[in-house]
């Protein structure tokens, strides 16, 4: 993903377009281009769908999570493959006899919350560490860079496995903590590189000569010009975090009852795949579509902000 570092010219955009002039017009351009892209629109719609399940499950099902289950109905498939057939259990029952559709709807929240929170935490960390390290250089840079190297060098799954085996309680926050601890490094490196490139620009020297404080230089001048590639990477990171969380679920160190997630449902389904394929197919579709929507959004945003590819 080192290619996203390319072109500091792309870095002149800001999120809301608060900076006047040139950058606002790039953001404006980008937005205009985005609106025309079908993949962007499709991704956005998908995301809205899944997001509404995560935020307001009651819109989609009248059942609460893990309630009204009957173990004796477990692994009973749907009566019809058509989910709109009007059956009371359009997706059948899950491995413990709960309505699969309801469990599926309630399973949306965990992955989305994990993906977004992990990325936010990682983004915050990387902006902070990356700009400190890039701007000040010297021993601080040395220290932060080596710590980043260490965290980057740790085999990801191995680290998560060890930490999560040690925690007996696996709620969403334990997973968020572990994934954040593993996922801040790439963005930090990206940020550092951007800051180093930006700090030698004339306008930064000018601001310094005018007596601006370090903080002001970093926040008003460097960051707005350096952060775009990091943001673009962050949209991809959401998908990666959701995917990583599902791998942890698969390995049996992910979320525990009463939390629900598609990853756990997939993990439950693996042993049943041959006899009850629907158990794996439904959550796989939901999870894949969610990841797909984040990936499509990320792609579209990157293309829109990268003038070289216009």
């Amino acid at each position, binding site marked *: 993903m080192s290619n996203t570092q390319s072109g500091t010219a792309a870095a002149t955009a800001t999120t809301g377009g608060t900076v006047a002039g040139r950058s606002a017009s790039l953001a404006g351009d980008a937005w205009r281009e985005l609106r025309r892209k079908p993949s962007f629109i499709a991704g956005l719609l998908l995301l809205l769908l899944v997001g509404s399940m995560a935020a307001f499950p009651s819109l989609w099902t009248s059942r609460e999570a893990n309630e009204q289950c009957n173990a004796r109905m477990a692994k009973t498939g749907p009566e019809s493959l058509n989910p709109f057939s009007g059956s009371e259990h359009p997706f059948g029952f899950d*491995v413990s006899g709960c309505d699969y559709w309801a469990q599926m709807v309630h399973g949306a929240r965990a992955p989305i919350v994990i993906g977004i929170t992990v990325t936010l935490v990682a983004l915050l960390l990387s902006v902070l560490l990356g700009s400190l390290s890039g701007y000040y250089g010297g021993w601080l840079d040395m220290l932060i860079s080596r710590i980043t190297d260490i965290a980057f060098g740790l085999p990801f799954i191995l680290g998560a496995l060890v930490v999560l085996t040690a925690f007996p309680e*696996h709620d969403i926050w334990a997973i968020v903590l572990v994934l954040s601890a593993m996922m801040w490094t790439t963005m930090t490196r990206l940020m550092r590189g951007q800051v180093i490139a930006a700090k030698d620009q004339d306008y930064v020297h000018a601001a310094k000569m005018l007596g601006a404080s370090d903080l002001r230089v970093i926040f008003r001048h460097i960051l707005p010009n350096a952060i775009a590639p990091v943001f673009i990477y962050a949209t991809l990171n959401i998908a990666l975090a959701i995917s990583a969380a599902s791998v942890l679920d698969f390995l049996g160190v992910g979320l525990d*009852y009463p939390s629900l997630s598609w990853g756990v449902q997939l993990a439950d389904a693996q*042993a049943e795949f041959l006899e009850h394929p629907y158990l794996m197919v439904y959550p796989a579709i939901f999870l894949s579509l969610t990841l797909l929507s984040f990936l499509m959004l990320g792609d579209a945003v990157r293309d829109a902000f990268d003038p070289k590819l216009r």
Partner: protein
Amino acid sequence: MRRWRGAAPLFAVVAASSLVLTACGDDGGGEGDKGKTGGTFVEGINEPDNLTPGFTTSSYSSTVINALFDPLTELTPQGKVKMLDAQSVESTDQQNWTVKLRKGSKFSNGDPVTAESYVDAWNNAAYGPNGAAANYYFANIDGYDALNPEEGKPKEKTLSGLKVVDKQTFTVKLTGKFSDYPLTLATPFAFAPLPKEALDNPKAFKENPVGNGPFQMDGKWEHNQQIKVKKTKGYTGTRKPKVDGVTFRVYTSDDTQYNDVLGGGLDIGTVPANKVKAAKQQVGDRLQTIPAGTMDYLGFPLFEKKYQSADLRKAISMAIDREGIVKAVYDNGFKPMKSLTPPIVPGYQADACGEFCEYDPAKAKALLKKAGGFEGDLTLWFSNADPTYEKWMRIVAQNLKDNLGINAKFKKVPDSDYLTTLNEAKQNGPYRNNWVMDYPSAENYLASMWGVGNRMGWKGKTHDKFNKLIDEAKAAGTDSEREAKYNEAQQIAIDEMPMAPLWNWQNFTIASEKLGEVPIDSYAYDGNGVRIEDVTVK
């Protein structure tokens, strides 16, 4: 993914289909009138931890050790004791036992098996500082405590209860009367004899064990890959093998074993319970089912204030849908239990627990009310050793919520920490507990789980009346007297319900089309319940 069964699962004769097969294998095959000899086959195992008898309790090690070693006795397919490497094991008072060895028994390196081969091996495993995993199997021999002090180095190096009389004879003095003692000696991974080289150079021996059994190593132990054994030349025992060799191939999951049998890469493998229905459709008779000795229980932390009421404990037991769980998680492969001991143990009482182990949400609710209700959340404790634990605990949690309105959370403890957690009484809620049978006697369950020095039954206190009944049963002369005493003791454990019985495990073994007879019977110490010496290849 590693599943520990502790000791080898022992199997009963109950399943009709396997009985027929067994009969063919045992009676017809011996004379060679139908079973062809020769050929080799591949059996699936998990990586064993150690192949030196005394230094392991894992069922995967047991599978291999069972091929390499002949212990003093063996268990017949009916669960009765039969002499194997011994000529006789006798006692007049059930406490002092005399063992006479079979003449002509040899190790595969040519050394004769003598009384020392047993006594030295047992002393070696019973000596605490050697760190032998099967150490506690020797705890009922007189002098064990001197070799295993709580702290510091032991003063003695040998068990005072073991005495060599002559080359063929030794005596065992137990700490108390125990009429089932010859039964326990059939455990190969604890009580098999060792040649001298095992004690002289244990490191080398571990990689290339030498035993007195029907098979010997064919090359070194290829870790994480396979262990090959071949027929022992000049074997004089009664377990003469029909095949020329066996390859034990190492797997890490039962799912893969099953898939590999279907794909033709494996001849004998384990089928996970949730695959049984599909396997039956796919392979028919080549899937054999046998009840195992393993029991699952739900324990209650009696040292916690919240769980003092027996009515509360019974209410929880009645709110759990055992039938539903067994269907959902184990595809009806395991059997819901209303007794503390499994059906394959003599004296089994099918309905010992009665209505308290029956799913009845309404009565459970009433009983909970009588007990004064339940305040706050409830935490369920179990280990991460097997993914199905979490699956059934989830249904227990849903049952408790739907039927009793109790909110449950999970504590999934690392496997390596689970027993320590129980030993230190850190679990503050109902917990998974389980017992794998060492030998088919009710004593093995009751004394180990509820009796003196127990780890989990009545944590911290012992029950005098219960213990007295167990002692009386152990000294009893007749089977019926013994069983009556055990059942009386069981009733006490049920009335107070420190642990509720859940279900009894079954084992499922699948064989490939390549094999002719695959006798799977009650008490073979093979992880798949196979009498490997009687297997034939088409």
